[in-house]
């Protein structure tokens, strides 16, 4: 492999790595958002259940 080939390969690896890191960061963030959505849904379901219980008791 010549020096030019090594540098060109390095340049394309840098581009690939940057896009990969970006996609991984976004994927992790979306995972966190999904967890947050699930948590909110659980809270909402729990609140609805609590409301139903209150009505039946009253």
């Amino acid at each position, binding site marked *: 492999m010549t020096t030019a080939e090594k*540098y060109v390969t390095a*340049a*394309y690896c840098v581009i690939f790595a*940057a896009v990969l890191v970006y*996609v991984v960061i976004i994927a992790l*963030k*979306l995972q966190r*958002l999904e967890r947050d959505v699930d948590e*909110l849904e659980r809270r909402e379901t729990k609140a609805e259940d609590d409301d139903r219980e209150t009505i039946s008791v009253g």
Partner: protein
Amino acid sequence: MGAVERQYRVPLPVLAVASLVLVTLALALVFFVVPNDADQGFSQRIFYFHVSIAFTAYACFAGGAWKALRHLWKRDPYADLESYVAVHQGIIFGSLVLLTGSIWARISWGHWWLWSEDQLVLFLVLFLFYCAYFMLRFSVDPGPQRANFSAVYALFGVVLIPVSFLAIRIAKHFIHPVVFTSNVTSNLPGSMLWTYCITQVALLVLAYTLYRIELAGKRLDLRLRELRLA
């Protein structure tokens, strides 16, 4: 801030597949189809992506400025977040321009960076100007004031784009290669021109895909914060 959904013509999965196919095609053309440049040899292959990434960064900054104008002019409720995401994309692509440019400079000039080159320094100024955008944005509390300050700043920055683009043509030394002149076909003959065009389209589609993904995440994040406060 309540309205967080904007309808797009092209669905995100279609964009993702298109960018994957186009980038793969561009890489195949760069490494297996185009001949070596007579003057620069193998190292010229960096330019297909380096130049395309540079134009994509300019497009992102210009897009950010356009959205900033929409925010200030039409009070478009989506525009502030879109402007921010576009500038963020511009910074990512701008970093890649500087990195790939430095690698090419090391092969051809024997230096990672030359402060005497107007083109390089002006691009760095543009890049740092937009880096400071984030410092400004996050130094102000969320709200209309932050959106207005950010929009005005993003609009000022767009003035640097033509300066940076034209610097290569008005530079005294002409060390940095000039590809896009009035006679582009003689500088990039045959398959080289096609490869460049396909690479440019691929990177624009990739940038737009990443923009849409980031925007979707940011909007969801915003909506969740609103729900938590409700």
